[in-house]
C-alpha cells in the first residue's frame, strides 16, 4: 500500500482540533471575559462572536468525528476514560450555546441569568477541555498527582482562551472596550506564559515517553526552536498590543499552533500514550478511503465558505449589530 491512510487521518484530525481550539477558543475566551465588561460592552462582546460560534463548534464535531471514523477503538477507549470531563464540557457547551439565543430574547433578571450562564458555560467547557488535554497527555493514569497536573493544564488552557478572546476583542472592537481588552490580553498572556512554562516542565516529569522524546541529544537542540519560537510569539503579542489591531490575535494563534505542535510531537504516534498507536487503532482502509474521497472534495468548499463568512462579517462589532 502506497499511502499511509492512518497518518493522513491523524494529520486531518490534528488540523481539525487545532482549528477548533483556535476558533472556539476565542469565543469561549470572550464568554469567560463577560463579567469584566459593562452591560453595553457585553452586548458588543457577544455581537463580535455571534455569526461565528456555531460554525466554530462544528470543528469540534469534525475533530471528534475524525477520531470516530479513523480510530474507532481509540474513540471508545478515550471517551470512556474521559467520561466525567466530557460530560462537564457538554453541559457547559449546551448552557452557553443556548444562552447565546436566550440572552438576547430575555428581559430583566432572566437576561442576567443567561448572561451568567453564558459565562459559566464557557468557563466550564474550557476547564473541562483542559482536563481532557491533561488526562490525555498522562495516558489517563490515576492518582492525585496526575489529576493535579491535569488541573494545571486546565488552568493554562483557560488562560490561553482568555488570551485568544481578548486579542479577538482587540481586533473586533474599538474605543473603551478595546482598551480594556488590551489590558485583559496582557493578563491573559502572563497567565499563558505561566501555564505553558508549568506544563512544559511538568510534562516530561509526568511521562517517561515524553521525556525520552525531548531530551535526546542532539535532537534536543533542534527541538529547542519550538519553545524559543513560542517565547518570541508571546513577546510579539506583548509588543504589538495597543499598536496593532490584528497582530496580537495572530500572535496568540501562533502560540496555540506552536504549543499544539509540541504536544503533537510528544504524543505521536500514540493516540493513547504508551498503549495504542494510530496504526493499531486505524479503521479499515475501505472506510478510510471512502471518507477521504469525500473530505478532499468537500473540505475546499468548507474552507471557501468559511472564508466568505468572515469576509461578510469583517470590521468592528457594535451592540445590537448581530441581534436578530
Amino acid at each position, binding site marked *: 500500500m502506497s499511502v499511509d491512510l492512518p497518518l493522513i487521518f491523524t494529520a486531518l484530525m490534528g488540523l481539525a482540533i487545532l482549528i477548533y481550539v483556535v476558533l472556539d477558543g476565542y469565543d469561549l475566551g470572550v464568554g469567560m471575559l463577560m463579567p469584566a465588561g459593562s452591560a453595553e460592552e457585553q452586548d458588543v462582546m457577544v455581537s463580535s462572536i455571534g455569526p461565528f460560534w456555531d460554525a466554530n463548534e462544528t470543528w469540534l464535531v469534525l475533530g471528534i468525528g475524525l477520531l470516530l471514523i479513523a480510530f*474507532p477503538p481509540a474513540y471508545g477507549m478515550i471517551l470512556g476514560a474521559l467520561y466525567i470531563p466530557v460530560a462537564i464540557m457538554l453541559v457547559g457547551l449546551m448552557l452557553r450555546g443556548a444562552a447565546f439565543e436566550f440572552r438576547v430574547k430575555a428581559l430583566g433578571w432572566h437576561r442576567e441569568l443567561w448572561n451568567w450562564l453564558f459565562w459559566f458555560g464557557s468557563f466550564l467547557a474550557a476547564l473541562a477541555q483542559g482536563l481532557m488535554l491533561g488526562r490525555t497527555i498522562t495516558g489517563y493514569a490515576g492518582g492525585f498527582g496526575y489529576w493535579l497536573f491535569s488541573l494545571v493544564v486546565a488552568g493554562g488552557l483557560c488562560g490561553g482562551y482568555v488570551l485568544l478572546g481578548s486579542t479577538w476583542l482587540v481586533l473586533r472592537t474599538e474605543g473603551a472596550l478595546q482598551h480594556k481588552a488590551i489590558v485583559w490580553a496582557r493578563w491573559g498572556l502572563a497567565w499563558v506564559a505561566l501555564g505553558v512554562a508549568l506544563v512544559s516542565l511538568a510534562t516530561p516529569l509526568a511521562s517517561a515517553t515524553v521525556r525520552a522524546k525531548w531530551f535526546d541529544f542532539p535532537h534536543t537542540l533542534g527541538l529547542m526552536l519550538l519553545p524559543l519560537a513560542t517565547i518570541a510569539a508571546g513577546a510579539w503579542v506583548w509588543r504589538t498590543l495597543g499598536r496593532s489591531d490584528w497582530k496580537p490575535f495572530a500572535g496568540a494563534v501562533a502560540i496555540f499552533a506552536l504549543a499544539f505542535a509540541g504536544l503533537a510531537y510528544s504524543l505521536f504516534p500514540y493516540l493513547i500514550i504508551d498503549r495504542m498507536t494510530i496504526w493499531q487503532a486505524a479503521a479499515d482502509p475501505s472506510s478510510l478511503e471512502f471518507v477521504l474521497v469525500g473530505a478532499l472534495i468537500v473540505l475546499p468548499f468548507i474552507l471557501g465558505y468559511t472564508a466568505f463568512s468572515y469576509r461578510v462579517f469583517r470590521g468592528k462589532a457594535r451592540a445590537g449589530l448581530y441581534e436578530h
Partner: protein
Amino acid sequence: MHASQALDLARAQFGINIGFHILFPSITIGLAWLLVYFRVRYARSGDPAWLATYRLWTRIFALTFAMGVVTGIVMSFQFGTNWPGYMNKVGNVAGPLLGYEVLTAFFLEATFLGVMLFGMNRVPGWVHVLSAALVALGTTLSAFWILALDSWMQTPAGVAVRPDGALIAGDWWQVIFNPSLPYRLVHMLLASGLTAAFLVAGLSAWRLLKAGGDAAARGTLRTGVLIAALLAPLQIAAGDMHGLNTLEHQPEKIAAIEAIWHGGRGIPLELFAIPNRATRSNDYAIGIPKGASLVLRHDPDGELPGLDQFGDDLPPVAPVFFAFRIMVGLGVAMLALAWFGAWRTHRGRTAPRWLLWTFAGATFIGWPAVLAGWIVTEMGRQPWLVTGILKTRDALGDVPDAAIGASLTGYILTYGLLLLAYIVVLTHLAGEGGGETGGERA
C-alpha cells in the same frame, strides 16, 4: 444484576439525550424550508408583512437550531462514552456515515445560518435567499445521513465480516440505500413538515388570540394549516408503506407493534390491550377481527408472524404497542384538525376563538408523535443494536454506574432548564408580534 443496572442507566441516558435532541431538528428541518418560502415571497413582493413574518420565524428558527446544535454535540460523544462496543464492531460503517453528515451538512448549515441571521444588509438579496436555501439543504442532508445510519442499523446491508469480527462495508451504495432508508427518510421528513406546520399554526393562533387584527399572523396560520392539511394524509400513506417494509424486513417488530403473540391467518387489530409477557397474551383486548391482516396484508385472511416465532430475542412488547397507538392516534388527530381548520379558514373566513385555542393548544402536537414514532422503531429493534449483528448489551462500555448516574442527572437538569426556557421564550416571541424594524435586525 450490576451489569443490567449500568445497561439500564446508559440506555436511559441515550434515550433521553436523543429524545430531547430530536425535538429540535424535527422543527428545523421543516421550518427551514418554510423560511425559504417566506424569504422568497418577500423578495418577489417587497411587502413588509412578508419581511416581518420572515424575521419573526427566523428568530424562532435560530433559537430552535441552536438547541438542536448543542444537544446534537452530545450525541457525537455518546457513542464513545457509553457504547464503545458499537464502534469496535460497526465503526467502519457508522463512522463514515456520521463523517459525511459533518462534512456535507453541519458546516453548511452552521456557516450559512450566520449569513442568514446577520447578513441581510451585508450581502446582495439573492445571496441572502441562497443562504436560507443552503441552511435548509443542510438540515435535510443531515437528516439523510443520520437516517441512513439508523436505517442501516435496522436493516443492515452491503457489509462483510473481517476475520477479527469487525464489520466492513462491501458496497457503500447498499449500506446507504439499505432497504428501510427510503421509507424512514420520507416518514421523518414528513413528520418534520407536520411538526413545523403545527408550530407555525399554533403560535400564529396564539398571536391572534393576543392581538386579533394581525394580518401577518392570519396569513401564517393559514399557511401552517394548509401545509398540515396537505402533509397529514401523505404521512399516513407513507407510514403505511413504512409498516409494510418493516413487515418484510423486521417481522418481529410488527409482531410487537400489533402485540401478535401467536402468528397465523386472520389476525385481529387490537385497538386496546395490555400485552402480558408472562402469559404471552393480551389482557383486556378490544380489537377489530381480522383487522391486522387486512391492514398489513390487504387481505382479511392474510398470514402474519407472531412473537412466538422469534425465540427469546423479543423487543419489549407493551411500550412498542402503546407508542404505536399514540403515534397513529396523534396522526389521525392532526389530519382531522388540519382539514377542519383548512375548511374553517377557507376564502378568508376568520377562525373562531375556540378554534384558535385548539390550534394554540396543538402547537407542539408533533413532538409526542415524533417521540412515539422513534420509540416504536428503536425499542422495536431491541434487543438488537444492529439487527442480527450486535446486541445492545454487548456494546456497553465499562463506565461505573455512579458516573453514568452523575452525567444523567446533569443532562436531565440541563434539559429541563433548556426546555422550560425554550417554551417560555417561544410563546413570548409569538405574543409580542413581529412588526419590529430597524438597522441590521434580521
